C-alpha cells in the first residue's frame, strides 16, 4: 500500500477551503477599517508639510532642511560682515557655532550623511525629492527637541537685532535670516501621534452632534415611510391583474436612476421660483411658501426625505415582494374556509410570515440611509445654515476639501461605529427570528 506523505484531516481541509474567503474578508473589510482607525489616531493633514506623514517619532524633513542649510551659512557670514557692534557679531558667531554643532551631530551617523548628500545632489538640479524614505529621516526625540529649541532661540536673537537696528536694509537682512531659521525649525518634525485626542475633540463638537442628529432623523423618518409605502406597493404588485409586468417594471425606475442625477432633478423640482413640486405643494397649502423647501433648515430636511422616499421605496417594495411570494397560497385558502376576512388574513398570516423579510429589508435600508451622502451633497450641500449636513458629508468636507485625514478618518470611524451598532441590533432581532433553530 502506498503511504501518503501528507494529509489534512477533514477539519483542516475545511479551513483550507474557506481560507481564500477569510483572506478576502480581511483585505476588503477589516483592512480599510483598521487603516481608518489608525489614521484617526494622528494629527494627519496632507496639505501641511509638517504633518503630512504619520510619524511615531521625531523626523527631519531632509528636503527642506538641506535646502535651508545651504543658505544658512552664507547668510550668517554676510550678516557677520554687516553687523555693527561686537556684541551682534558675537551673537552671530555663537549662532553659527551652535548650528554647526547640531548639524555635525546629525550627520555623524553615516547613513544620515549619505542621505543628506543624496538630497543635496537632487536639490542642486532643482529636482523634487519624491522618495519618502529619502525625504524623512527619523531622529532621536531629545536631539530634535534640543535642535528646535536652539533654532528658535537663535531666531529670536536675530529678530531682536533686526528690531534694534536703525538701518532698513540691514533690518531686512536680519529678518530674512531669522525667517530662514524659523522655516528650518519647522522642518524638524515632532511626532504627530495623538491617540484619542481627535475623538475627544469630536465628542465636544456641536457640529458633529448636529450632523449625527440630522442623519438619525433622516434615517428614521425616511426608512419608516419607505417601509409603509414599500409594503403597500408590494401588496399591490403581488396580485394578479392586467399589465402587472409593466407596473412591476415601471415601479423600479426611480431606483434605477443614479442618485446624483435624481438629486439634480429634484433640485429643479424644488426650486422656489420655477419648481413645479414646490409650486403645487404651496398651492395645496402643504408647505408655508414655495421657497420654504430649500431655503429653510426644516424645508431642506423635508425635501431630502421626500426625494429619498421617492427613490428607494421601489427597493423596499422589491425586497418585500420577494418575501410575499414565499407565502404559500394554501394558507389563504384555508383561512377563507375558516371564514377569515381580508384584514384578519393580513394581520394573522401575511405580516407574521413577512417579519423576517421586513427585518432584512429594514437592515439594508437603515444602513444605507445612515451613510447618506450623494443626495444631500448634490441637493443642498449641507445648507442652509448647515442644517441638513449628514455625518458623511461632514467627513467628506473634512477629508477632501480640507485635506485633514486624521480628523476625517475619525468621523469615518464614528460612522462605522454607528453602523456597526445598528447592524448589531438588527442582527440580534433577526437572529432570534430568522436563524433560530436553522443554523444547524
Amino acid at each position, binding site marked *: 500500500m502506498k503511504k501518503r506523505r501528507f494529509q489534512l484531516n477533514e477539519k483542516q481541509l475545511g479551513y483550507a477551503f474557506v481560507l481564500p474567503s477569510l483572506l478576502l474578508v480581511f483585505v476588503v473589510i477589516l483592512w480599510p477599517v*483598521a487603516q481608518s*482607525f489608525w489614521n484617526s489616531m494622528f494629527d494627519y493633514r496632507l*496639505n501641511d508639510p509638517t504633518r503630512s506623514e504619520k510619524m511615531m517619532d521625531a523626523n527631519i524633513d531632509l528636503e527642506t532642511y538641506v535646502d535651508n542649510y545651504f543658505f544658512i551659512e552664507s547668510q550668517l557670514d554676510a550678516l557677520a560682515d554687516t553687523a555693527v557692534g561686537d556684541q551682534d557679531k558675537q551673537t552671530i558667531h555663537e549662532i553659527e557655532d551652535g548650528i554647526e554643532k547640531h548639524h555635525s551631530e546629525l550627520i555623524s551617523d553615516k547613513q544620515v550623511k549619505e542621505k543628506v548628500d543624496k538630497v543635496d545632489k537632487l536639490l542642486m538640479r532643482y*529636482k523634487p525629492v*519624491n522618495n519618502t524614505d*529619502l525625504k524623512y529621516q527619523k531622529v532621536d526625540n531629545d536631539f530634535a527637541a534640543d535642535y528646535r529649541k536652539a533654532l528658535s532661540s537663535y531666531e529670536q536673537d536675530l529678530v531682536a537685532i533686526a528690531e534694534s537696528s536703525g538701518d532698513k536694509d540691514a533690518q531686512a537682512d536680519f529678518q530674512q535670516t531669522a525667517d530662514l531659521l524659523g522655516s528650518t525649525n519647522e522642518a524638524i518634525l515632532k511626532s504627530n501621534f495623538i491617540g484619542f485626542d481627535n475623538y475627544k475633540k469630536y465628542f465636544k463638537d456641536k457640529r458633529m452632534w448636529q450632523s449625527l442628529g440630522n442623519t438619525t432623523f433622516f434615517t428614521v423618518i425616511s426608512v419608516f415611510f419607505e417601509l409603509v409605502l414599500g409594503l403597500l406597493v408590494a401588496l399591490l404588485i403581488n396580485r394578479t391583474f392586467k399589465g402587472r409586468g409593466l407596473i412591476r417594471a415601471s415601479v423600479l425606475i426611480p431606483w434605477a436612476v443614479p442618485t446624483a442625477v435624481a438629486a439634480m432633478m429634484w433640485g429643479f423640482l424644488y*426650486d422656489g421660483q420655477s419648481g413645479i413640486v414646490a409650486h403645487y405643494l404651496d398651492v395645496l397649502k402643504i408647505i408655508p411658501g414655495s421657497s420654504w423647501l430649500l431655503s429653510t433648515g426644516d424645508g431642506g430636511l423635508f425635501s431630502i426625505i421626500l426625494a429619498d422616499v421617492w427613490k428607494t421605496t421601489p427597493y423596499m417594495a422589491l425586497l418585500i415582494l420577494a418575501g410575499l411570494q414565499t407565502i404559500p397560497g394554501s394558507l389563504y385558502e384555508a383561512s377563507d374556509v375558516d371564514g377569515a376576512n381580508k384584514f384578519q388574513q393580513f394581520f394573522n398570516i401575511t405580516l407574521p410570515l413577512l417579519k423576517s423579510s421586513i427585518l432584512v429589508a429594514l437592515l439594508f435600508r437603515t444602513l444605507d440611509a445612515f451613510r447618506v451622502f450623494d443626495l444631500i451633497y448634490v441637493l443642498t450641500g449641507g445648507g442652509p*445654515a*448647515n442644517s441638513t449636513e449628514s455625518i458623511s458629508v461632514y467627513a467628506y468636507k473634512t477629508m477632501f476639501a480640507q485635506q485633514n485625514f486624521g480628523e476625517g478618518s475619525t468621523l469615518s470611524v464614528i460612522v462605522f461605529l454607528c453602523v456597526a451598532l445598528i447592524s448589531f441590533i438588527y442582527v440580534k432581532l433577526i437572529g432570534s427570528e430568522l436563524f433560530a433553530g436553522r443554523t444547524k
Partner: protein
Amino acid sequence: MKVKKKLFGGFWILLLVVILAACSGDSEADGNDKESDDSDSNSDEQVTLTYARGVDTTGATEVLAEAFEKEHPNIKIEFQEMPSDSGEQHDQYVTAFSAKSAEIDVFDADVIWPAEFAQADYALDLDRFIEADDIDMDAYFEGTVKAGNFKGKQWAMPKFTDAGVLFYRTDIVDDPPETWDELIEQADELKGEKDTEFGYLMQASQYEGLITNAVEYIGAYGGAVLDEDENVVVDSPETVKAIEKMQEIVGSDFVPSNILNFTEIETESAFIEGNAVFARNWPYLQASSNDEDKSKVAGNVGFTTLPAGDDGSASALGGWMSMINRYSEHPEEAWEFVKFMTGPEGQKITAVDGGSAPTLVDLYDDEEVQDAGVTFSEPDFVEVLENAIPRPVSPIYPEISDIMQIELSKALTGDITAEEAAGNMQTKIEDAMED
C-alpha cells in the same frame, strides 16, 4: 460564556489588524521613486506638457496653445479638462498632487488656492524664474500678485482677474446707487417697474460665493477677516454692521423669497429673464445679458462699482492664476508656458478669444482688447479691478471658508444674530489656525 469567548476572539483579531496596519503605515508612498538622471533639459528635445484647467467653452485655450507651440516648436501642449466647479477642481488637484503625481505640469488655480498649495508643497516657487527672466511684477494689478504670494515667495502668476460689480437696468434706473442704503431704497422703490419681480439679486446660498459677497460688505464697512500678520480680526463692530446690512437685504421683500439658494447661475438666469432691477455678479454677466439670443434685457444693462458702506466700496477679487506642479518633470518648459500665458501675448489671447479681464494694466490701452469685451474700455471697470480685495490669504483657507459659510448662512436664516456670527467666526477661525 460562549458569547464572551467569541467577543474576545474578535478583539484579538482587531488588535492584530491594528498592529499590522501600524507597521505598514508608511510604505504607501514609496512606489513613485523616480530618480531620473537623464532628463537634463535639452532645448532641442521634444517635450509634451500637460496643462489642466476647468472646462473652457470659449476655445481660447486652443488658440493659446497653438500660438505657444508656434513660438516653441519643441514643446507640445496637451490640454486636460477639469470640472467647471471650482470646488470639485480643487479636490481633484489635491488628490493628484498629494500622491506626488507628475501627470499635470501646468494648471490654473483659483485665486484662493496658492497659499494652501504652497504650504502643502504642491507648487513650484517661481522667484528664480521671475528673476532670471526679469519679469516686471509691478506691471500686474497689485491685488492679483498678492494673491499668488505666500511667505514672501511668488507661487502663481496672475492669468486673468475678476471682481464683483453691480449690474442695473438702464431702462429703469437713472442714477445707480452710491451706497448700500441707497441701493436698499431704490430696490424697494423700483421693484415692479417694467415687469420686474425683484429689486436686487445676490449670492446667498451656503457655498463659496457667499464668502465673496460677505467679504464685499465687510470691506465696505471697514472690517476684515484676517489682518496682514494673519491675526483674526473678524469680531469687530464693522463686521457686525456689515452682516446686519446683509441680513437686512436678505430679509427684505425686494429679493426673491428663495435668495438663500441663489448662486451665480440663478442670479444670471433671473436677471437676463428681466426679473430684477439690480444684481451683484461677476463681469461676465455684461456679455451674457447683452446677448440678444438668450437675454430679454439686451441693450438695457449697465454696471457700476458696488455700493459703498461707511468705508467706501469694496469688491471681491476673483480670477485665476497659473501654477506649476512641484513634481513636474519639465519645470523649465512649464515655466516657458506659464510665462507666455500670463505675459502680454497670452493674456491678449485670453482677453480677445476668452473674454476674460487681463491682469496686466497696460493691456487695457490695447485697442483689440478694448474691442473684445464691452467692459474692458471702461475706466470704471479698471478701477474696480485695481481696488479689488482678496479673500483671506491663508494656507487653511478651505477651513476658514467652511466656518464662514456656516456662520454667515446661520446669520442670514436668522438662526443667530450678527454679533453671534462675528463672535463665532472669531473663535472658530482662531481655533482652526492654532491647531
